């Protein structure tokens, strides 16, 4: 292998070059920016870690982090359970029109977040949205989708709608990779479809599930488009610190505190890394036990 090692660099070089230019360089620049402090009056001065200490004491940032953590705990298990159930159902062979279901559930993935949020925002409408209209006909109060208490759930619904199909496809692909003779052997042993799903398929899906989980950690903590677009509909519920990413964006573009925004983004990245490793660690331990 050693003689060919050099060729290895040749293969990975194009990717790494673009990676360095498009990811590492801006990141390094952001790191550099985060060490300064720019005022509207007085210009730019070196500030050391001042931005970081400020961020650690920033209540609004902490609120945002806790909120997305709560979002993660509510939304991700639900989404992955739905994805897993759909993938298993479609793979089970027990389903009529499996192809239709697979495509139908997957289609929302092809809808941009902008359009998805626009649609759900309309459906959520408290006065004249279809759900409010239906509730009105039944003599019930309109469900307050956009209220303070419901917002996180409403947002979780949009994200679930967007990404169940995506996760389902990943899981489904992993299921197809399970050697079929395993099922046949189990079936010969008299195991039913449920049993096969429970004791063969789900364990085989562990790595794929873990992958989906990690992506969901990242997605949750980076939540941006949905709250940003829903903000217009419920400005008093979603403030600029609703999610940490929205907060960073507002800091940079509204408050023009680019330096502080860079520090916040860095801390957010650190939170995501820690959360991801926690997930890996916990699930790794459980799989061994």
């Amino acid at each position, binding site marked *: 292998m050693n003689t060919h090692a050099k060729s290895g660099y040749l293969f990975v070089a194009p990717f790494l070059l673009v990676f360095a230019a498009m990811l590492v360089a801006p990141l390094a620049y952001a790191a550099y920016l985060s060490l300064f402090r720019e005022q509207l009056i007085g210009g730019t001065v070196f500030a050391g870690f001042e931005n970081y200490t400020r961020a650690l004491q920033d209540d609004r940032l902490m609120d945002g982090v806790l909120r997305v953590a709560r979002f993660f705990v509510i939304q991700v298990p639900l989404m992955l359970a739905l994805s897993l159930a759909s993938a298993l159902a479609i793979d089970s062979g027990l389903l009529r029109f499996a192809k239709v279901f697979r*495509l139908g559930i997957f289609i929302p993935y092809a809808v941009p977040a902008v359009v998805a949020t626009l*649609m759900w925002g309309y459906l959520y409408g408290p006065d004249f949205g279809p759900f409010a209209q239906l509730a009105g006909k039944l003599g019930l109060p309109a469900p307050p989708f956009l209220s303070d208490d419901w917002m996180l759930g409403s947002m979780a619904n949009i994200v679930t709608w967007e990404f169940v199909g995506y996760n389902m496809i990943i899981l489904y692909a992993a299921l197809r990779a399970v050697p079929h003779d395993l099922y046949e052997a189990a079936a010969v042993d008299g195991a039913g479809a449920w049993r096969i799903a429970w004791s063969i398929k789900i364990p085989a899906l562990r790595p794929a599930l873990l992958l989906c989980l990690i992506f969901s950690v990242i997605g949750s903590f980076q939540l941006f488009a949905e709250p940003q677009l829903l903000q217009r509909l419920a400005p008093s519920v979603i403030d600029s610190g609703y999610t940490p990413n929205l907060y960073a964006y507002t800091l940079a573009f509204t408050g023009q505190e680019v330096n502080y925004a860079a520090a916040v983004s860095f801390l*957010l990245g650190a939170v995501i890394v820690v959360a991801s490793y926690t997930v890996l660690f916990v699930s790794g331990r459980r799989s061994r036990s």
Partner: protein
Amino acid sequence: MTGTLERTGTAAPARHRKSLASRRSNVLTLGMLALLVYFLLPLFWLGVASTKSTEDLFSTFGLWFAGDLNLFTNIKETFTYGDGVYLRWMLNTLFYSLVSAGGAAFLAALGGYGFAKYRFRGNNALFGLVLGSIMVPTTALAIPTYLLFSKVGMVNTPLAIILPSLVSPFGLYLMRIYAQDAVPDSLIEAGRIDGAGEMSIFFRLALRSLAPGIITVLLFTLVATWNNYFLPLIMLNDPDLYPITVGLAAWSSQSAGGGSGSTGELLALVVTGSMLSIIPLIAAFLLLQRYWQSGLSAGGVKG
């Protein structure tokens, strides 16, 4: 559907496995049907809403059609408003996403293959670095990237959208896993024995086995670029360069901004434009079904 339900419902509780399975399949089908309704309902709304005039949009029941069909007027308006800028946005999106996805898939295939099949110094460290970068928040990158691009005069050009989209750490990860199994070492060895260079082994032997994986990565990056909003929003100033997402958002804010020169009439165009904008991608998934699904299953067989 009700017919099948009744039949199974009235059937005596069967003990043997075959009828048990068929009863369950109906229950399962019904459950999945409910799920399907959930996933398609908003799209149904979008379809219905795009047949309405702005006025009907605000005054009729959301989930059903208004008296008069305004779909064709809306479509015509959408394509002719602002000198037909909508079509331009669609073509831009198509161009950006095809080039980005093609480039990203190719880089990922090359890199994934390299990481999977060659043991060089720093292999694991570099791969770990790339993988770790998935966790970097995108908003942290957008502003510095903009500043860097402006120094080399690339802001407000298609390159500003395409270049950052060429990096797909997830694509690299997928291709590495895929290449590990899909390209047997023996194939590479055989190529070497035949005296082929490393590159020609990749292009002439490995690429074919990698094709299903590449298509998968291609489609996923295609969707990512197609749906990208934040990056083009920051990078582009010229509406002629906008992709469809930014264009629609611009119309939407034009209709929602209030103040001078704004109008609520654009709202019908935003809805119709949204409806039209998701058709190509859905059509692509439907038409390429055989392709990407065989890609996924082929990956499964190899696995």
